[in-house]
């Protein structure tokens, strides 16, 4: 006699709300007229995200390993990850709502009459909203998935919409499409590695449950564990853009529509690190002697490579892509720490980095000329004179990335370095510090370009942002500032939420 699986809907409700809203969004695409579609979609998205936040708040003290049989573990850290993702998505969706970043009709060939007509008719690509919601849902699931099947499914659920979203830029469509193609092919490639690794982990542990991997310690087939860990790592490290699995990052960041880049840069990182932390802390904790060396090597290479190559970038989005690579390296220190402090530090870091990132991409989307966004750094010269406020905010965000005190980035870095130091990875801290020094160079270079170089006679200007973008940028910046000055607001929370159920 088969009994129906027991699901605790309360605990799953945040994800269910998002997925439900996404499905609803698809239906609206199909049945609602063009005129109101955008407004309705935006309302539904924001509503769903807010509701999800509310639900997360409700369940913040509940934990369960059997929320959906054994496939999902809702624990403190999981709730926090989901909270970060939803909060970031909420800000990002406001940026995404600025439709003029997106192609009118994705299927139209670039430069064709079809496209022109679509543009003239002000056709809007409102399916972005359900796509984003699906991605958000997938990310949320990814951070709480506690078996290999759910992990893989969640990975694909959040990746596939992102592949599409990357290709929807209104301008420079060839680049956008290329970004989508690269992201898709490489993403799928990485998924295959992940899945292959999962298979071997399954072979090693005899079950797909993550928590069972530790239980299988001492099993004769260590070779399966080796292969499993390495191949799964490839898939996961790809998502966080760690070197040498980072190559998609600059291309996709540059090609994708800027609001999507912001969303992706912030949320994917949270989701991927959520999963990495869960898998390594819960599943592979006992095999640390095996994976800590390789992750350490990856972390070192990633920090240095990201920082060094960023110096040579001439495109602000690519520069931030390399910056995000470097930050992935810093975050890996949290993974390597394998301690409560490391987890708490990662939570804080992801939160603050996410908001800073979204705000930064929000600002990038404001700097334009007649043909659209200008991301060429040489044309940002003298921006401080043309619009001091925007330049000042962007400088502040860059300083945050650089980890100057009184910004949230500094506290994050401090927390994560402390955790790494505490777990006796002192050499990693030193490398991290040196990489930060290199990284500071290119952040500051941008500030110099904006403030200390006279503007060339060039038609770059800063558009007046819509109220939605303005809210998004202001919110994200304020959060970043607030966390820099009063980090306790979040640090205490991240400490108390730094708990993964094994």
């Amino acid at each position, binding site marked *: 006699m088969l009994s129906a699986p027991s699901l605790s809907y309360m605990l799953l409700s945040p994800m269910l709300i998002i997925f439900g809203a996404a499905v609803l969004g698809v239906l609206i695409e199909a049945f609602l007229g063009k005129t109101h579609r955008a407004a309705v979609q935006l309302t539904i998205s924001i509503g769903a995200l807010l509701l999800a936040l509310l639900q997360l708040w409700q369940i913040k003290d509940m934990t369960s390993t059997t929320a959906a049989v054994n496939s999902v573990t809702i624990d403190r850290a999981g709730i926090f990850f989901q909270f970060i993702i939803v909060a970031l998505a909420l800000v990002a969706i406001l940026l995404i709502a600025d439709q003029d970043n997106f192609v009118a009709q994705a299927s139209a060939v670039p430069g064709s009459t079809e496209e022109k007509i679509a543009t003239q008719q002000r056709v809007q690509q409102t399916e972005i909203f359900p796509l984003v919601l699906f991605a958000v849902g997938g990310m949320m699931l990814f951070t709480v998935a506690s078996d290999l099947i759910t992990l893989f499914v969640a990975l694909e659920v959040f990746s596939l919409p992102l592949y599409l979203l990357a290709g929807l830029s209104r301008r420079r469509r060839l680049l956008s499409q290329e970004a989508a193609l690269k992201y898709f092919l490489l993403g799928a490639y990485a998924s295959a590695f992940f899945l292959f690794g999962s298979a071997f982990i399954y072979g090693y542990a005899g079950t797909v449950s993550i928590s069972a991997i530790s239980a299988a310690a001492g099993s004769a087939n260590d070779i399966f564990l080796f292969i499993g860990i390495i191949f799964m790592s490839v898939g996961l490290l790809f998502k966080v853009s760690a070197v040498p699995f980072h190559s998609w990052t600059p291309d996709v960041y540059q090609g994708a529509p800027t609001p999507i880049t912001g969303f992706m840069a912030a949320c994917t990182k949270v989701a991927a690190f959520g999963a990495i932390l869960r898998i390594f802390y819960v599943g592979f904790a006992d095999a640390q002697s095996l994976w800590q060396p390789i992750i350490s090597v990856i972390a070192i290479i990633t920090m240095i490579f990201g920082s060094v190559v960023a110096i040579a970038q001439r495109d602000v989005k690519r520069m931030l892509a390399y910056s995000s690579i470097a930050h992935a390296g810093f975050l890996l220190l949290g993974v390597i720490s394998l301690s409560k402090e490391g987890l708490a530090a990662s939570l804080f870091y992801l939160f603050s980095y996410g908001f800073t990132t979204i705000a930064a991409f929000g600002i990038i989307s404001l700097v334009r000329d007649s043909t659209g966004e200008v991301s060429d750094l040489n044309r940002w010269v003298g921006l401080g004179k043309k619009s001091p406020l925007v330049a000042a905010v962007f400088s502040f965000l860059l300083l945050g990335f650089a980890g100057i005190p009184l910004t949230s980035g500094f506290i994050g870095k401090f927390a994560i370095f402390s955790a790494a130091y505490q777990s006796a990875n002192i050499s990693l801290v030193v490398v991290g510090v040196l990489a930060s020094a290199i990284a500071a160079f290119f952040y500051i270079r941008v500030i110099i370009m904006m*403030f200390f170089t006279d503007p060339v006679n060039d038609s770059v200007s800063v558009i007046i942002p819509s109220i939605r973008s303005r809210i998004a940028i202001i919110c994200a910046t304020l959060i970043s500032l607030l966390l820099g000055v009063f980090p306790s607001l979040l640090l205490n929370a991240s400490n108390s939420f730094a708990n993964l159920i094994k």
Partner: protein
Amino acid sequence: MSLLTAIGLLPLISAGMIALIPTRNNELIKRATLVATTIIAISSIFLAVSFDKNSDQLQFVQKNSWISAFNINFSLGIDGISLVLILLSTILVPIVILATWNESENGRWSSKVFYVLLLTLESLMIGVFAANDLFLFYVFFEAMLIPVYFLIGGYGTGNKSAAAIKFLLYSLFGGLLMLASIIGVYIISSNQIGATFDITQLATLEIDNQTENFLFLGFFIAFAIKAPLWPFHTWLPDAAKAATPGTSVLLLGVLDKVGTYGMIRFCIQLFPDASKTFTPLIITLAVISIIYGAFMAIGQRDIKGLIAFTSISHFGFITMGIFAMTTQGMSGANLYMINHGFSTAALFLIAGWMISRRGSSTISDFGGLQRVTPVMSWSFFIAGMSSLALPGLSSFISEFLVLVGTYTRYPVAAIIGTLGIVLAALYILIPVQKALHGPIVSGNENLKDLNLREKIAIAPVILVIVFMGFYPKPVLDLINPTSEKVVVNAGFSDPIAKVGK
């Protein structure tokens, strides 16, 4: 809120209020800033008066939790060393403002921005000297870079943006190394006595030798860059040349003192054993700085570059005094910080006036100024004499104390350091001869002498230089208890004279 905290916050509050004045209302902004900083200076003198100079304990202590997760506190409090450095900062700021009244008008941004940056910097300067929490100190230490960076890059001359970034990157690099060490200390504290950033508690940690050495180096390199010690000095001449005279005064007069202050407060107090290990190396670097800075100063054609290199030489003396680990050396070094602050301030301000009048900073473009602009020339001369440590002027006492203190422990270093006084005569007298003496170089005939505002600005500095040369006791009384405490805590006692009394 303690008086100290109030004084620390005042500049920031003033900055906020000045930010509200409309940009075009230039004069009002300047006057308001001057009034505000003067009030701050007076309050800090009041602070000094109510300071109990017989105590070597921290005073005006204020402690509030800031980041509870890491047990970081907003914890302020001062001892004698901190107090005199705070006094130096608060007194120099109004002088700088008055002296460089129009300096802010040729910048990239408005005067208002200049003064807001300046006031912010003042708050941070007070904070950095008053912080009792290592983390808080670091925050001030790094945050100070930003206003200075914009002050150099936005209002400087010449190759200002390159100089500004060089300054910033050097400092950031040092700061990050220090961050690694701070983290190390923090973790060790959490393993031994429970996580804390309280400097007093951190000083009680027992750290194994190798770790201590590495942690020490992290701190030391940061401070050696700041101070700056050879071979970490190359940012300073560039920054000093590019910055406006006022900024240079604060940069060399106060900010760089954070480096030497940090050596005393952190390097020695937190890592006495490592300090001992590295002392020979540091003394060597200090001696090289003294001689090297002096030679380089002699070779400079640019007057600001010259003053910058003399400072490198002087910082060599200060560092030598600190690591001599004798009370004379320590007190001398502390006193030197103050004296160097004032005499360099005088030199830079006057050099600034000379440059703005002549439109050139090349020494050989001047000549015969003593006859054209006597007051300006004499002020420069007195400041220069103080810089070469003429007895009767302030720097002499500190330099001599440093040398005596060093001699009792490291005679060879002191002897080489003493040779520096000959070079000092050269690096001061050569520009004096070229710029002030000799026939009046064409183009200088109609230079204007100091006006009333400038005279009022420079008078207190000169007065301090002369007064402190004759009667350093008030300041030494503030410094002595603390420096003795530092030396004793580091496990040293003064060498006893070979012939007993």
